[in-house]
Structure formats: C-alpha cells, structure tokens
C-alpha cells in the first residue's frame, strides 16, 4: 500500500462570513500528482497554504509527512517546510535580488557549512534543470512570466523537497509557455521523485500533469478520481460546465 504524504480530514476554514472550506478530505500518496481544480476564490490556495502553516484551519486535521501541521511548534514547522516546495502563483521572486541571490537565499539559510563552490554548483544545477542557466545574473524584472515561474520552481527545488505545491502554475501564460510549464512539472516529478499538488483551473494543465483530480466547488470536493473518471461521466452540472468551458477534446 502506498504511503500517504498528505492527509486532510474534515478541513474547515472561514474568513468572516465567507465559508471557504466546508470540511474537505484529501490524500496525496508518495510519488503521485493530485490536481485540485476549482473556480477562482473556491479555496484551492487556502488549502495548500494550510499545508505549509501560512494559514490555520478552523477545524479538521491537516497531516503532512505524518505530522499534524497545526500542532507543530515554530522550529518543527520550519523543518517540515523545508520538505515542501511551494511555487507561488506570481512566482514571488525577491525583486531586489538577482536570480542567483534568489536561489542562494533558502540555501544559505538552511544548509550551513556550504563552500562558495558548492553553492555555485547547486545553483547552476538547479538553473540547468529548469532550462535557464543564462539568467543567473538577471533581475526578476528582466524575466518573462514563464521564466519567473521556472526560477520560482528552481528556488523551491534547491532544498530537495519531498512534496511540491504549485499554485496556478500556468495562470497568465501563453499556450506555448503553459505547455513548457506543464512539461517542467512532469520533469520535476520524474527527476526529483516528488509528490505534488497542482492548483489550477486550466484543464489542459490538469490533464497533462495530474494522476488524480479533485474538483473543489462550494467549499467541498465534488468529484475525485482520474481525469476520465471525473469528466467523462460528469453528472454534477458545475463539474460538467467546468469541463465544457475549457473546450478540451475528450
């Protein structure tokens, strides 16, 4: 039986009167990619932010690598965070630092006693893995949207995470760059043996990257399963319209 790396049980989260998550359950098994689909504001990002302790749930349990995130003290939470790579929607590159400094930032803070040469090698290796070695001395403002996403991924990979979280990896990108990002997600999965959660409302991205889908609508997962299982016989009108709107040929 496969090992569960993430397990959410009855997770609830509200912001004032707005009930974003109404008791959701989800498991992520080692080595697989789960895609969470849903409308904007459905609570997809909230779900993964609870996973890394950026937000706290109102009730329910979020277990990551066997640890209850809510109950962890700062030090233990930080140790857990090092095993999770978080690729943000807008890349969240530190805009006052060069690409090299962006990659070096998590490295020098979390791995002590690295020599200058070791750091440089690691940075070059990561930039090679996302196909952007030439950007090393550039500032984030000089990069395109797709390049920023790739550098964001490289920055999270530098600490060898066990779990990768992608928040809207293809949002705001042209179709060709979207394809490149989708391929990158799969390459990362194969090369670094990570388990991943991809948050998106792009069905092409979901189909290419995901082993399993979970459709989050009205604060609950309405449908779970493979792409075919979720969309080929979709009876839920909202799930069906989600598919129809994306114009994907089955």
């Amino acid at each position, binding site marked *: 039986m496969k090992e569960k790396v993430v397990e959410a049980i009855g997770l609830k989260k509200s912001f*004032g*009167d707005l009930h974003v998550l109404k008791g959701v359950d989800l498991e992520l098994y080692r080595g697989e990619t789960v895609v969470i689909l849903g409308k904007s504001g459905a609570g997809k990002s909230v779900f993964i*932010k609870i996973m*890394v302790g*950026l937000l706290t749930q109102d009730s329910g349990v979020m277990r990551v690598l066997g640890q209850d995130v809510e109950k962890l003290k700062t030090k233990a939470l*930080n*140790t857990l*965070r*090092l095993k*999770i790579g*978080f690729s*943000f*929607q*807008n890349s*969240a*590159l*530190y*805009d*006052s630092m060069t690409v090299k400094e962006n990659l070096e*930032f*998590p490295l020098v*803070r*979390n791995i002590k006693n690295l020599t200058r040469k070791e750091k440089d090698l690691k940075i070059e290796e990561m930039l090679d893995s996302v196909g952007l070695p030439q950007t090393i001395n550039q500032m984030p403002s000089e990069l395109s949207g797709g390049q920023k996403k790739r550098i964001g991924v490289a*920055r*999270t990979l530098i*600490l060898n995470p066990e779990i990768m979280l992608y928040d809207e990896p293809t949002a705001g990108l042209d179709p060709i760059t979207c394809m490149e990002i989708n391929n990158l997600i799969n390459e990362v999965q194969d090369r670094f043996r990570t388990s991943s959660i991809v948050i998106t409302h792009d069905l092409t991205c979901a189909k290419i990257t995901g082993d399993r889908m979970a459709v989050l609508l009205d604060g609950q997962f309405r449908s779970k399963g493979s792409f075919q299982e979720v969309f080929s016989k979709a009876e839920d009108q909202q799930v069906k319209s989600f598919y129809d709107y994306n114009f994907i040929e089955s």
Partner: protein
Amino acid sequence: MAEEADDRKPLLSKKIDKFFKGLADAWSFVRRYFQEAFLPPFEFKELIHQCYRIGVESLPLISLTGFIVGIVFTNQSRPSLSEFGASSWLPSLISIAVVRAMGPLVTALIAAGKVGSSIGAEIGSMKVTEQIDAMEVSATNPFKFLVVTRVTATTIMIPLLVMYTDFVALMGSFLNVNANEMVSLTTFFFQVFESITFLDIWSSVLKSIVFGFTIGIVGCYKGYNSTKGTEGVGRAANSAVVISMFLIFIEELLALQIVNAIRNM
C-alpha cells in the same frame, strides 16, 4: 450574534472600535520587535545593508537640507538680534536652536519622507506579491529579516544623521556669519560649544533614537499589514510618512517638556 450586533453599531462607534483594534495590533507589532530583536539568529549582513541604505544613501539630501537650514536660519535671525545690537550672539542662538530642536526635527522629518515611505512601499509590495510568504515557507523568519533589521537600522542611523545634520547646519551658519560679521571659525565654534550643554547633546541623541525607531516601526507596520494590491502599497507608503511625522511632532513636544523639567531641577 456578535456580528449582527456589530452591524447595528453606529458609524462613530465602529470607527472607535477600529481605532482601538489598530492600536492593539500596532502594540503587539512593537512587542514582537523587542521579542525578536534580542533572540538569535541575528541578521547582521542585512542589518549592515540596511544601515548603508538608510544612512549613506540619505547623506546628499540631509547635507543639502542641513546646510540650507543653517544659512536661512542665520539670515532670518540676524535682523531681530541686530535691533538689540546683539548680532554677536548669533552663533549661540543658532547652535542652541540647531542642536536642541532643528537638527533632530529636520533630519527626522526628511527621513520619515525618504526612508519611511521607502520601507512602507518595499515591505508592502513584498507582502502583496507573496514574497513574505515565500520567505516564510523557506523557513526564514520574515519578521526578523525584514522588520527587525530595518527598525534597528533606522534606530542606529537617525542619531548619526542628526549629528551630521547639526554639523552641516552649523557650517552653513558659520559661512553666513563669517561673510557678514567676519567671525573666524575658531571664534564661531568657541561660542557654539560655550552655549550648548551636555544635556542638550544627550537629549538630542536620545530624542533621535526615538525618532529613528518611530520611522522604522511605522514604515514596517504599515508595509507588513498592507492589503489590496498596488493601491494598498501606495497607501502603506503614504500613511507611513503621515503617521511617522505626526508621531515625531508629538514626541518632540513630550521631549521638550521632559528636558525642560530636568533643566529646572
């Protein structure tokens, strides 16, 4: 139930509630600064970088302003003193005014505009573009890295800038006095140091430390709590300046009362 009751509250009551909630929030931010500032790990490299940005990069503006203040204040004071045949007291008058009030106040107000707004905008933009979250998920304490370093840097650098402004303003004043009254540099500074006391210098330094802390903490607080995208960043920068300036005047008033009380003891 509580929310329904909240909806029924009159507008004024809601505003008062909001004000006190904001005050409590700001207080917990200040408390967190003191909790985190003295606990390792210390971000020395970033602190030095911020000291450089806040101190060295403010020098041209501070120099120009201090110099002009010295010249203008001397020029404006001369007619009044001349009426009583007391223009020889100009160095004493200027030194007391510059060291006790104008140096710290002018420096702090300029720093509030230049440094406070830049801190508010920088941290605000990091907040709305999720850079602070990115720092947190990479196991770095963003409060320590961004807030503690900047507030400490302003607290260290503003007193140094004030001393520098005092010197530049006095030099500006000397040039004016020298051109009009033919007073030598030695005589000018002899009169200056004869007029100012240790209490003047210490109160000026202590006041500047408080001003520096205020500029840093207000800029960071406003930036750290900014919301609503780019509009929020603009607001954070703007309110960082306005609130810092307001607090600096209040602190100046309080410092004046305290120093006068000590002087009369």
